[in-house]
């Protein structure tokens, strides 16, 4: 839940990158961090396993500038994607204001991606949040795999799998090279801030 500080005229919001394991959530954050590093004052926090997989979360804060006279501070988090880490995944979602769901376009990852979106719905529900009422952007990542001969789902198929009911904005991406990462980030920040607009008088 965003915090509005009337004394400092500041808003703090929390955006979480969610999705299946090895889907590219950390890669998204690393790319954003690299691109915006001049505007980020701190190191990126990453709690990883020895095998370099996210164990708890990655995190960095980012100052977006002013909107309606308020300084907007965005806190970006990823969750661990592996199924077994649901307890920690749920913790990171606490107080979330906006979600990017990073889906894996590879045909072999289709089921894992669908299950992860179901898991997001369930975990939001534990905080009495409805996915339909939460600012959400979908990212269909790893589009570049096709060039390496790895079968990827057509956009229509992955969109039908994930977005037929949600009707959320979506972006094609190859986070490893940065394609689609910044548009996804811009869209979720705009949607999250817009959802708070009533409170920013």
């Amino acid at each position, binding site marked *: *839940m*965003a*915090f*509005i*500080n*009337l*004394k*400092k005229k500041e*808003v*703090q919001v*929390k955006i979480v990158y969610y999705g299946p394991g090895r889907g590219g959530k950390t890669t998204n954050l690393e790319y954003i961090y690299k691109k915006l590093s001049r505007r980020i004052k*701190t*190191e990126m*926090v990453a709690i990883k396993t020895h095998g370099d997989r996210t164990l*708890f*979360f990655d*995190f*960095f*804060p980012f100052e977006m500038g002013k909107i309606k006279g308020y300084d907007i501070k965005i*806190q970006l*988090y990823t969750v661990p994607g592996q199924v077994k880490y649901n*307890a*920690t995944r749920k*913790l*990171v979602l*606490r*107080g*979330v*204001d906006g979600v990017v769901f990073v889906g894996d376009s590879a045909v072999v990852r289709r089921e894992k991606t669908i299950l992860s979106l179901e898991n997001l719905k369930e975990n939001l529900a534990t905080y009495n949040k409805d996915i339909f009422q939460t600012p959400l952007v979908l990212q269909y990542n790893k589009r570049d795999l096709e060039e390496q001969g790895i079968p990827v789902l057509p956009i229509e198929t992955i969109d039908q799998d994930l977005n037929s009911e949600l009707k959320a904005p979506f972006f094609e991406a190859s986070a490893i090279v940065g394609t689609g990462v910044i548009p996804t980030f811009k869209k979720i920040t705009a949607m999250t801030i817009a959802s*708070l607009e009533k*409170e920013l008088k």
Partner: protein
Amino acid sequence: MAYVLKQTHLEDIEEILENYLPQAGIHCVLLIDMAGNIIAEHEIGKTKHDIPSLAALSAANFGAVNALAKIIGEEEFSVLFNKGERENIHFSKVLDEFLLVCIFDNEVSLGLLRLKIAKAIGKIREILES
């Protein structure tokens, strides 16, 4: 959804963080919410900590320890204390949604510190409830 704290409430909270708690030897104190947002902070001395990361990790750590509590049949562990060679961190819950994080060195008397923190929590709770 968002929650708002008024200027007067924040000033009252800052008064506790800036004047009351440093008397117990606390040199860095934050009031955060369980999402990791920073409500108020105060730091004295030369060392400047990475406050946003401290807040994010504190909220996550507290959440993780409370999940552990539930697994062993406890409702919660409302106080956590991490001791280091030079620096220590004390976490205490304020109402259901907030966490007071205090950093202090080994010169500080733990008994006095706990007493001061308990009193500060009472005052902060009153402000937040009003």
